Structure formats: C-alpha cells, structure tokens
C-alpha cells in the first residue's frame, strides 16, 4: 500500500509517468506549438516544468499540457514580432514538420505538411491536437473555446481541404 506524502510536502509527479509523457507527447506537442511560434521546443520544455510544479496535479495532464503549450506558443509568437505573415513562415518550415515515412504507400510527408500549413490556424490546431495529440473534441473545445460541434466542423473542414490539396481519392467516391 502506498503511503501518503508527509504533510507540507508537495506531491510530485512520478518521474516514470513524466518520462512517459515526454516520450509519448513531446514530438506532437512540438508540432502543435510550431503552429504559432518558431521555437516550439522551449515552449514545450517550459510546459513540462510547469506541469511538475502543479499542486495538485491536473486530472488530465495531456490536455493540460496542450493548453499550456498553446498559450505559451501564442505568447511567444506574439513576442517574436515578425513581419512575415504566419502562413509564409509555416510554409517555409512545413517540410520539417513530419519525419520521412518508412512506408512508401503512405502520404507524402512534405506535401501533407504544406497542405496542413496552408490551413487556417483554427483548423490546424484542431487537426494536430486530435490526430497526433489524441485529444477529444470536448478537450479541444475546452482548450480553444467554443463547442465540441464547432471543433468537429473545423476538423472535418480542415481535413477536406487537405484532401483536396493532396488530391487524395475519396474512399466513398464512385469509381468510374
């Protein structure tokens, strides 16, 4: 039986759990933070350190991490004060968003990154948080504001736009 922590001592996150979160979500969090700022690693690292210092620990640490990373990335993106539009910056960095796929039958990583970078930020954050962060639409709605239905509409609209750009075949489309 696990003994409770002594009085006055902050209950710390288990280092093994923290290591698991880093291994499992750091890459996706970096991709998520990259949507707003040019130095996403710093934002993600700061978010993990903030997570450790939370007392009490959040019930949903992954959703908490995405919310913290989103706020930090937006703040850092504002402080960068670049003259270029964000879409141009995202397009320039897009090829580095995904690792080269091992399977040749999958989507082209560079093309997918470019298509994703051309989407509005509202659709991009929903797609990244849902596909690579495994956040539910309710969690994304709580993070970015709005309802789950609105988030879902943004998600489907973004995916349709990407599919059109990538010209991926619709599986339900009638074949001629």
């Amino acid at each position, binding site marked *: 039986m696990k003994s409770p922590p002594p009085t006055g001592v*902050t209950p*710390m*996150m288990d*280092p093994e759990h*923290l*290591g698991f979160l*880093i*291994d499992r979500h*750091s*890459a*996706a969090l*970096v*991709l998520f933070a990259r949507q707003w700022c040019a130095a*996403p*690693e710093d934002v*993600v*690292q700061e978010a*993990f*350190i903030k*997570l*450790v*210092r939370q*007392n009490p620990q959040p019930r949903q640490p992954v959703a908490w991490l995405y919310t913290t990373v989103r706020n930090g990335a937006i703040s850092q993106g504002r402080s960068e004060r670049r003259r270029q539009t964000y879409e141009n910056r995202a397009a320039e960095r897009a090829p*580095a*968003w*995904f*690792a080269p*796929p091992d*399977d040749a039958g*999958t*989507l082209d*990583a560079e093309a*997918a990154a470019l298509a994703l970078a051309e989407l509005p930020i509202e659709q991009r954050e929903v*797609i990244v948080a849902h*596909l*690579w962060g495994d956040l539910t639409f309710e969690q994304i709605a709580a993070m970015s504001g709005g309802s789950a239905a609105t988030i*879902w509409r943004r*998600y*489907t609209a973004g*995916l*349709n736009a*990407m*599919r059109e750009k990538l010209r*991926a075949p*619709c*599986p*339900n489309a009638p074949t001629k």
Partner: protein
Amino acid sequence: MSERSDEMNQAAEVAPFADALRTLVPAGTAISRDRLLFEAGRAAAAPRFGWLWPCGTLLFAAISLALAGWAVFEERPAQTVVVERERVVEVRVPAPVEAPAPSPNLTEVKFEGAQASRETVQMYQVRRDMFRWGVALLPPTKPMEKARAVRDATGDLERWLEVPAGTLTAPYAKPSPLFPMMNGDD
C-alpha cells in the same frame, strides 16, 4: 435529421484520410529527455515562493531609493534667519490727571490759641511776605552790624574806663521797617 446525416457522411468521408494522416510521425524534437527530467526535478524541489524574498527586497530597495531622492531633492523654503534687534518704542500714554497739590496758603496764617506773641506773629508775617515777594523783602542786616559795632565800642569803652562789663549798655537797636504797614504802624 438531414443535417446530422450530412455530418455522419462527412465523418465517414474524412476518416480514412485522417487515418492516413495519423500515420505520419511528427519530426523528432531537439528536447533532451534527460535534461528535461533533471530540470523538472530541480523545479519541483525549488521552493514555491522563492521569488518572494528577492521581490520584497527589490521593492523595499526601490522605496528606499525613492525616499532618499525625495529627501535630497526636496524643494525647501529659504531658511529664515532671525535677527533680534532691540528697538525702543515710545508709547505716549496720557498722564493721569491728578488733582494739583494744594498750594500752601501763605497769605493766611492760622494761630492756634491766643498765646502767640507779637514777635511770632511778625515772624510769620515776614515769612509770608518773603514767599510772596521774594528774598529782597528781607530786612537788611546792616542794623545788626551796627548794633554789633556799637556793642564792640561799648566793650572798648568799658575796658578803657575799667568799669565792670555790662555797666554801659547799648540801647536795643530796633530795625527800621521797610514797610511800616507791615507792623501795623499806619
């Protein structure tokens, strides 16, 4: 109902594409796992309000500097030098009106009783006249000198004649009155 069916159709349409996208792996990050764990552990061990003392010190230092600046550069009024000068102030106070001292009634001499002699009455009369008319009114002393000369001559004569002193007596030299009216010899 039709709206919900449209949404269901859209979900079904994008699901295969979403699964294909999910196969893409985000690019590796430059985050060092070990270093992040170390930083997280150090942050967890750090006191939660470690910033309190530095911020408090900074705050009070700023207040002290502000007060020192205020004390040094405060605009003070010109220092007033007080010089004491003694000045005599004449205050004219009207003299209290006093009743004049009653002048001695020199013209009237009162005698108590009827035993005053004639010489005393005359003496007082002479004094009254002297106060009224001045010292020039006093009788000359010449008759007295004449009487003394006569007395001396009588003494000499008695010595020449070898008779006892006092044998030859000079008559009383009565002074001649300047103002006979004073004596009532009108």
